[in-house]
């Protein structure tokens, strides 16, 4: 089996909570939001890993930390055999070409005062991949490729002339123009209308095939994850609680939280849902993380063990790992 393209080991990102002047003077210890609290995963070439969780679970921070857009607190990120965790910004620059990000909000992802053609051409100039004229040619081709035609006309437009769906195509084009090997797609279709969502997903899929590109696809919507991911990782309060092949995880969720999430998703195909597992309450604050299993206060199956000991990820099925003392089977 080939070496994975991306390997993340025990990645952590803690944000300090702001203290007032008095607290600082009194030397009250700094408290941390443990946004990402030790996650590990691998992504193979051409593979899509869906990272799923509710708001505040740390999935977005995880995506940014993997790209070192946010500096990790601890852990290791290995990209194509190179440990990029400690590289300087200068040393990191060549890797920037090989890994890219697509954001959720197509409105703030583009500079309002930069022509969309220039936005797409600029990455090429930054990495010295093309001269000005050539970069423009490539950008025009890219516009055509993402379906913004006539491309000459679109090149000179500013983002405010475009709809959300069109902007997201520009954002994708800007990321794809560097032919990256790995892309973090952070809720890339959440703000796109349903009728256009599928076409954006198709576009990403076509680039994945063309470049044999890996993706970390971050989403809160399991149904979207099901469509695009080869494997799925479910995050809760900074931890991965379950990870495995998409089909397997969705058919046989082993973690109570995963099952609850799946049950809560509305569906047309299955209009009346069974609701065996009721979970209550809301995700707690990532500053005060519950002891033991962090899901235990909301878990109907929790017992003494869950309150005391934090479960490790264990393999319940081939390639299917779950962090639960009482996995559902």
């Amino acid at each position, binding site marked *: 089996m080939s070496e994975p393209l991306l390997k993340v080991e025990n990645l952590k990102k803690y944000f300090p909570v702001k203290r007032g002047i008095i607290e600082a003077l009194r030397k009250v210890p700094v408290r941390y939001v443990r946004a990402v609290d030790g996650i590990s995963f691998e992504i193979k070439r051409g593979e899509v890993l869906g990272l799923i969780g509710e708001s505040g679970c740390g999935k977005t921070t995880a995506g940014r930390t993997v790209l070192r857009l946010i500096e990790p607190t601890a852990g290791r990120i290995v990209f194509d055999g190179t440990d990029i965790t400690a590289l300087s910004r200068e040393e990191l*620059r060549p890797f*920037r070409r090989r890994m*890219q990000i697509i954001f959720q909000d197509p409105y703030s992802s583009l*500079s*309002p005062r930069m022509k969309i053609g220039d936005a797409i051409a*600029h990455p090429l100039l*930054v*990495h010295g991949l093309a001269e000005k004229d050539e970069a423009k040619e490539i950008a025009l081709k890219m516009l055509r490729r993402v379906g913004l035609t006539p491309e000459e006309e679109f090149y000179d437009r*500013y983002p405010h002339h475009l709809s959300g769906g069109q902007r997201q195509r520009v*954002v994708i084009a800007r990321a794809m123009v560097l032919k990256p090997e790995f892309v973090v797609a952070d809720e890339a279709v959440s703000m796109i209308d349903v009728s256009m969502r599928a076409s954006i997903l198709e576009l990403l899929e076509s680039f994945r095939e063309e470049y044999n590109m890996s993706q970390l696809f971050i989403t809160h919507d399991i149904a979207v994850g099901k469509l695009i991911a080869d494997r799925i990782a479910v995050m809760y309060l900074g931890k991965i609680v379950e990870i495995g092949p998409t089909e397997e995880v969705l058919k046989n969720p082993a973690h109570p939280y995963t099952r609850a999430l799946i049950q809560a998703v509305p569906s047309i195909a299955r209009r009346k849902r069974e609701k065996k597992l009721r979970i209550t309450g809301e995700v707690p604050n990532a500053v005060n993380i519950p002891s033991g299993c962090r899901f235990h206060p909301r878990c109907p199956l929790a017992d003494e063990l869950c309150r005391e000991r934090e479960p490790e990820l264990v393999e319940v099925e081939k390639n299917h790992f779950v962090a639960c003392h009482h996995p559902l089977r």
Partner: protein
Amino acid sequence: MRLIDYIINPLRERKPGRGLLLFGISVVLTVIIMAIFAPWISPYNPTQIGADVFAPPSSKHLMGTNNLGQDVFSRIIWGSRIILYVVAIATTLSILVGVPLGLLSGYRGGKVDRALSMIMDSIYSFPSLILAIVIAVVLGPSPVNTAIAIAFVYVPTYFRMVRGQTLSLKNQLFVEAARAIGVKDWETMRKYILPNVLPTVLVVFTLSVADAILTEAGLSFLGLSVTPPTPDWGYDLRVGQPFLLDGYWWLAFFPGIMIMLLAMGFAMIGEAINERLSLGTR
């Protein structure tokens, strides 16, 4: 969008704010033309003392004459030169200092940013006219010194605005995208942040020019800007005050009106652009 479009587009489109803009631009242009062509437009020598004192406005003296028999209209025309000159220098200086400092401070953050912000905030929160008075007194009365005094008190205005904008732009996804692409810091500032700050700079520019005009007029009203007999609106207003109470209203009336028209012109341009901006770029 080019910066100039923020002025031209609203002029072309029939939308609210167009009236303001038209008014503002025509007033400002008129004063600029007055200043440039003063020697040709002005009917009399503005410093020429005449026997015909306190002549009320008439066809001979459009705005009357003052206590020294000088033609008020000619003094108004020549006076536009000083105020424009001072305000132009002052604004250029404060933009040249304030904008880059604000950009850097906001983008880099850290201790330097905190110290700089504190200094700027202190100056900003202090009555600018009083500070300008102190500086102008120390430097001595001359148009250049007045300009320096005004520039000093308006640096924080630009600094704070640019810094604030930079801070919020820094959190926008497109700046993060620039980092993800691998764009160097100074280029991020130049290509991604600065162009987005400039429209707001334009608004602050027009509004602070309006402010600077009033400050300049204030300083010269207090006798801290030019030495007589140089024609100057603020100074002429001061000279006119005692005579106003005697009923010679035209000595004070016209210089004051001019000061306010010019300030209003810039403020209205600013208001119109601001409205355009707050409508969003969408």
